[in-house]
Structures are given as C-alpha cells and as structure tokens.
C-alpha cells in the first residue's frame, strides 16, 4: 500500500515537471531556443497568485487567472525582446546564443521585480480547500496533486491534438522544420511564433500555480531547482518531443519519491543526477528522440 501511495505521489509530482518540461520543449522544438526565462514565469504564476490572494483578499480562482494572464504577457515580452529582436536585426535567431542569454536576463529581471515587491522570504500559500485530501481506503490523494496530474495530461493531450490536427499546428510544425520555407508559403511567422510563447508561458505559469497549491508555499526562487529538473525531463524525453517531455517528467517524479522512500532524502540528488548522467551518456538523443542527436524539432 505504501508503494502504491508513493507511486501516486511520484506521478503527481512528475506532472509538474512535465508541464514545465513541455513549456521548454515547445520553444526548443519550434525555434531551437532554450528559453531561460521559463523558471521566472513559473515563479510569477505562484507569487502573483499568492500576492493577490494574501494582500488584496482576492478570491483564489480570480487571483490565479490574473497571475496566468501576467505570465502570458511576460512570455510575450520575452518573445518580443529576445527571439523577435534577433530575427529583425539579423534575419535569423535560431543559430545564435544571444536570445538564450537575453532570456536569462529576463529571468533575473522577473525575479528582481518580485524581490523588490515582496521580498526574498518564502510565503505561505493559502489553500482554497478546507480539507485538501481525498481518501480512498488507506490511500490519501491530495486534491491539488490530482488537479496537477489531470490538468497536465489534459493540457498536453490538447496541445498534441492542436499540433497534429489543426491549421495552426501544421503552421507551427512547418516553422519548426524550416522558417524560411514557411514564410515562402505565406505563413506569417511573426504571427505564429507569439502563439508558441503564449502556450509556453501559460503552461509554465500554471505549473507554478499548481506547485504553490501542492506545497502551500511560494518564493522568488521557487523556479530554480524545479526548472533544472524540467530541463532534464525534456532532455530525457528527447528535445522537442511533447510526449517525451511528459514521460520524462513523470519518470523523474517517480524516481524522486522512490529514492526518498527506499534510500532516504539525503541520497536524492546523488542518485537522481547520477542516473540522469548515465542516461545521457548512454542515449544522448533522449529516450524518445530520433536516431540522431536532436537539434530540437518535433
């Protein structure tokens, strides 16, 4: 029973990694751009909803909706001043490291703004539920955990349908393969690329809200460690593969709880990162990547 309980917790933790990993992998897959501002957007999802709830007594769902809207705006700002800026200046943004570095600048900016506004302390995140736990026999399932898992699967399912079946998805995949060809075919690349950032920002912000709901805390640095895990999940799954990122995320969540269960928390980092190192050495293209080491396409 204990193992089953841990299995469920692992999957639910993993779903947070998965959401964040998909946020990363989408931008890499389409634009070959590792967007380092994503942990900042994740953090703003948690901090802004906390700030609105605790300081203006706003009802939780409205606070979270506003926080998510702020995350989308932040993501569009990043698009405008990193990717699009390079594209306008140099005609191509995918072969340069500059957008990556400027996105790191945005991460520092986002964290700095939150620090100025609310300080560096870890904040208690109020739970919207009286009793956040669902009990089935001896199993205890946290409602926020359940919400994370269901939302992650539904959103990623929706995203892959969007990519596979709609005109927008087709245009996104065309841009992912060749922005020049897409432009020649009359696809308005500058209209489509922001859509990618909107989706990515929304997923990152939502992961931040769900993280805060799960752990009842928010802090300006809450995105740092989880983002390294999300990037690892993405690499595990193969760059640019949406379902690869999901499976990588769930896998890391499972490994994390199992290591704590069987070896103890003090071994967590050594085993987790050691395992990742081994996997990357054995299979550098990721478990679900193609035969060649991916530059990061779907």
């Amino acid at each position, binding site marked *: 029973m204990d193992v089953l309980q841990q299995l469920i917790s692992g999957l639910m933790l993993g779903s947070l990694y998965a959401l964040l990993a998909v946020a990363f992998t989408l931008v890499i897959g389409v634009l070959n751009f590792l967007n380092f501002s994503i942990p900042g957007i994740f953090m703003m999802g948690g901090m802004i909803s906390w700030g609105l709830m605790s300081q203006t007594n706003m009802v939780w769902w409205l606070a979270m909706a506003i926080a998510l809207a702020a995350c989308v705006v932040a993501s569009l700002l990043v698009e405008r001043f990193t990717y699009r800026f390079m594209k306008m200046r140099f005609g191509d943004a995918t072969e340069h490291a500059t957008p990556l570095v400027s996105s790191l600048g945005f991460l520092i900016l986002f964290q700095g703004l939150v620090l100025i506004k609310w300080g560096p302390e870890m904040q208690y995140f109020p739970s919207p539920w009286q009793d956040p736990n669902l009990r089935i026999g001896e199993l205890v399932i946290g409602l926020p955990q359940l919400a994370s898992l269901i939302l992650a699967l539904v959103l990623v399912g929706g995203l892959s349908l969007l990519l596979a079946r709609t005109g927008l998805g087709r245009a996104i995949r*065309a841009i992912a393969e060749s922005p020049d060809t897409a432009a020649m075919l009359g*696809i308005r690349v500058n209209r489509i690329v922001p859509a990618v950032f909107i989706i990515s920002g929304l997923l990152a912000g939502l992961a931040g809200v769900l993280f805060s709901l799960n752990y009842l805390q928010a802090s300006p640095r809450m995105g740092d460690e989880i983002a390294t895990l999300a990037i690892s999940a993405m690499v595990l799954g193969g760059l640019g593969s949406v379902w690869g990122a999901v499976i990588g995320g769930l896998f890391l969540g499972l490994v994390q709880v199992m290591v704590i269960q069987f070896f103890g928390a003090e071994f967590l980092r050594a085993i987790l990162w050691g395992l990742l190192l081994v996997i990357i050495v054995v299979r550098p293209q990721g478990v679900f990547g193609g035969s060649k080491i991916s530059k990061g396409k779907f």
Partner: protein
Amino acid sequence: MLLELDNLHVRYGRTEAVNGVSLKQKEGEIVAVLGANGAGKSSLLKALAGIVTPASGTIRYDGEDITKLRVDQRIDRGIVLVPEGRRILISLTVEENLQLGAHQRADRSGLNDEIAAIYDQFSNLKERRHMEASCLSGGEQQMLAIGRAMLAKPRLMMLDEPSLGLSPLLVQQVFSLISELNTGGLSILLIEQNTSMALSVANHALLFELGRTVMAGTAEELTKDDVLRQAYLGG
C-alpha cells in the same frame, strides 16, 4: 496585362541581383525567363512572390500596385510560387504539405474535392498521403510542390527551376503538366536553365544575364536566334 514589371531592382547589400528589369505578361500566357546560374532569375521571382523587397521599381498585377504587399497577400490574389528545390516539408505528411498550400484560403469549400483531384492525377501521392514527405522521390516532390501551389487557387503560377535534378523522363512529365495547367487557363511564369524545354512550352521568353534582360521576344523568335542557340541550346 496580368503582370507588369517596371524597372525593377533587387539588391543584396551592394550586389545588384536584378538590375532594372521590365516585363509584361498577358493572362493565359506562359513566359519563360532563361539564363545561366546567378543571372538573377531566382531573385526576380522572389521579388514577385514578396519574399524579398525590391530596392526600386514597381510590380503591377491585374492593374494593382503590389510592390509592397506581403507574401500571403499576394497568394490571396493568386500569385503563387513553386520554389526552387521544391521546398517540401519532409517532417510533415504528404497530405499536410498539400493542406499547407491552402492554409490561408478563406474559402475552404471544395478543398477536399480539390485534394482528391490532385490525388487522381498523381496516384503516387495518394498512396503515400499519410506518410512523411521524406519518402517521396524528387519527381514526386515536384508534383507535390505543384499540387500544393494548385490548392492556393493560383491565377499566376511561378515555377523556379522545376526541372532541376529530375531525370529526362520526369522533366518531360513536369513540362507536359505545365502545358496542361496552362491549357486550363493558368498563367505561368517559368524560370529554367533547360532552355529548349522552356522554349517548347512558352509563348514569350526573356534571356537574363547579370540581372538584365539581354534578349526578349516570342518563343519562336528566341528559338531561331543564333546567339541563343550557340550559348544555350548547344548549337
């Protein structure tokens, strides 16, 4: 006039790729632009499609100045490019490539029938419709590129080196397809290094050298021209 170019210049930095070209094309005509590699033919076509912005000069289409319109706005008006090297998206399926041709069409009624008509014409594409386009041969990719352009409902189709890299048999097929499309009423602007094939289907032709028109006339006139015969038709 369907298409009228007046003193068009295209520059890349300091390089003058198209150096003052004027051209007139009537509806229903095939016009061929001939010339060696690097003569500026592709740059001309890119300027017409809206992919590069001309440094100066005007492009009029059906009486309207379209010099500053975007690619998608020109496609809306029926100016559709079949690019050099075909530019098939190999990670997408054959059918998705076809659908991309129609991706911005407002009127999507009849699209499925049009796709079915293309499959009737090219059975190889139909067999592979749900496979990645990377599985197609060069000839099949050219047919796919032309099919994709057809789905944009073109009035003026511009083909950039459609015979490039194809076997003589396939070149024949591509050119008979071009004639067939033209018989159906489509105006065609064709860029070719295969001078004899291009002249065999064209009404009018221009010879390009270093971004300038050095010779222009009906296809018969150019076919009989001694200079052209020696330089481009092998004597």
